[in-house]
């Protein structure tokens, strides 16, 4: 049982603001992902929960109890570091056992607990190896086992997959998802990879320069981005964004005219996802020369250049055209997202 409340926490170093007024309640057993580009304050937020960094302002509560002044060891959290931080002089078994030893847990239970944790991450054959003799993925699993061995209240994971190669990342991601389902412990997971966020999270917090941009389920964040930053950060490829002008429900910019939109007249940013638009023979809302074509295997990505921005559309995998050929793209108006040209905030609904 652990509900984490972050009440208006801020972190400042002199004039530099690392995290600004972060206010969120993380429910018990929730898997929360902090997502954002590097330097957005996501890791700092996690380190404040762990107690490795002091909050300049605000309160951190675990199960209603203020923990700001507690040492990391007294917060009953376990953390997985990006760099693994294994103890190089201890073998895998002793690494996993370390938290039990320092916390003075009954030694007769150690062996069973270590073996259960190592079995969960499939490390049984490596228990007697030193960390130096393991591959990156194995080291990361040792770090995971060390975190789960003493069944903490809260799990903190700081970009645990970013040092692994692409293939291993996918399998370890699946393993983490399965593990978190099995353990059902409140988890805070930091990543800059939006796919990890989408696949793992119950809820995602998108951050930028220390400020929370949006909090919501992966679906909400994907379907209804709160601003143009979230729209451009989530999704692969990211949402197409075009600046243009609204006039009487019609958005127009270079090569483009989209009707039946509801927004006040004036400059706006319009966004739509590559898979929501189709390449048509004629009569589309965008008619522009092709800038580039990319074969993805399951689809062909057609990209045009509109007002300096690249706009990509997923076409059928058999679609072929030459660069510089004119292409017509149908953009359904109900799939369009409108953002304020100045503030970037979502307009309408």
């Amino acid at each position, binding site marked *: 049982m652990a509900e984490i409340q972050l009440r208006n926490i801020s972190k400042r170093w002199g004039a530099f603001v690392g995290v600004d007024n972060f206010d969120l309640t993380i429910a018990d057993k929730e898997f929360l992902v902090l997502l954002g580009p590097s330097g957005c304050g996501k890791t700092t937020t996690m380190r404040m929960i762990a*107690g490795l960094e002091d909050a300049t302002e605000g309160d951190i509560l675990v199960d209603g109890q203020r923990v700001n002044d507690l040492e990391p060891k007294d917060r009953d959290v376990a953390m997985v570091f990006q760099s693994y931080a*294994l103890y*190089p002089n201890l073998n895998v078994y002793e690494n996993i056992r370390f938290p039990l030893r320092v*916390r003075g847990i009954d030694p007769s239970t150690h062996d069973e607990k270590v073996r259960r944790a190592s079995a969960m991450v499939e490390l049984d054959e490596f228990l007697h190896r030193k960390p*130096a003799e393991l591959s990156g993925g194995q080291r990361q699993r040792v770090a995971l086992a060390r975190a789960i061995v003493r069944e903490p209240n809260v799990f903190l994971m700081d970009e645990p997959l970013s040092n692994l190669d692409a293939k291993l990342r996918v399998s370890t991601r699946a393993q983490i998802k399965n593990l978190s389902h099995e353990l059902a412990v409140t988890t805070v997971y930091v990543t800059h990879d939006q796919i990890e966020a989408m696949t793992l999270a119950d809820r995602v917090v998108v951050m930028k320069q220390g400020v929370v941009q949006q909090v919501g389920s992966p679906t909400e964040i994907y379907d209804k981005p709160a601003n143009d930053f979230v729209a451009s950060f989530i999704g692969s490829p990211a949402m197409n964004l075009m600046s243009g002008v609204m006039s009487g429900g019609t958005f127009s910019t270079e090569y483009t005219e989209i009707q039946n939109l509801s927004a006040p007249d004036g400059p706006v940013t319009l966004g739509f996802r590559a898979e929501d638009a189709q390449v048509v023979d004629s009569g589309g809302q965008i008619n522009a020369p092709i800038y580039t074509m990319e074969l993805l295997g399951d689809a062909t990505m057609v990209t045009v250049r509109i007002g300096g921005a690249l706009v990509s559309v997923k076409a059928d995998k058999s679609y072929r055209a030459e660069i510089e050929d004119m292409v017509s793209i149908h953009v359904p108006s109900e799939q369009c997202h409108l953002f304020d040209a100045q503030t970037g905030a979502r307009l309408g609904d």
Partner: protein
Amino acid sequence: MSSAATRKPLPLKIALWAFVTIWLLMAAFPFLWTLWGSFKVELDFFSIADWTNAITGANTERTHGSTFTGAGYDGAWVQEDFWRNVINTTFVCIFVVCTSLTIGTLGGYALSRSGFKYVFWLLITALIFRAIPPITLVSGYLPVFFDWNVWGFLPTAIIVLVAINQPFTLWMLHSFFESIPKELDESAKVDGCTQFQAFRRVIIPVMWPGVITTGLFSFLLAYNDFAVTSMILNEGNRTMIPAIAAFMGTTQTEGNVMFAVAAVVSATAPLFVMVLFFQRQIVSGLTAGAVKG
């Protein structure tokens, strides 16, 4: 076995081996010469008439009936009680090494984990103190030691040696600690350690090579010191090096220079053993595998 890239032409190989052999002989010669000569009488080892006497030992045979004699060792160890100096040196070394390592590890760790800017200036100050020749410090200490009536005792020499040694120890350990990732401390703290437990249970085990290397340097400094020990210790408390110097200084009797030579050999031998023993421990790269590598 050897790949094409590392295979060398024969003349180069011969030249390399010849160079290494000559270099080795030149480096070892003073030690071997002293070792050999320590079993001769002074008239042989410092022979003016014929330098080959030092090798053949003509005068040694005339005096002692054999080309080798232990007279120098007997004189140094039995007559002049050189063993007392050995005990003094042991005492000084043990305390200097323990004290400077204790302060050095704690201080170096604290400095390496502190985020404050004054750390840099502290270390620079330490470096400046290290750069001052020890002898200038000693002359400053002397009046005070006379005044307090602590001149001549081993603990006084230990304190001065630690003071001279500490900046270097601190620097060296600080840079070793810097090379240990901070995530290890943080991981230990999250796992349930206090800051000191993290230091003792996680950082120090990783630090052993650094501690041993630094300890060896500070041992050598205390072991070989002449400036401080010769000025600060009285005759009864001399360590080996000033004692050897004292043997050399009194040249009225024939044997005394040979006592010094025998004592030099006695003082050098343990160093060889020690360096040979610890050279396997002075390995870096023990942190490999701690973080991604």
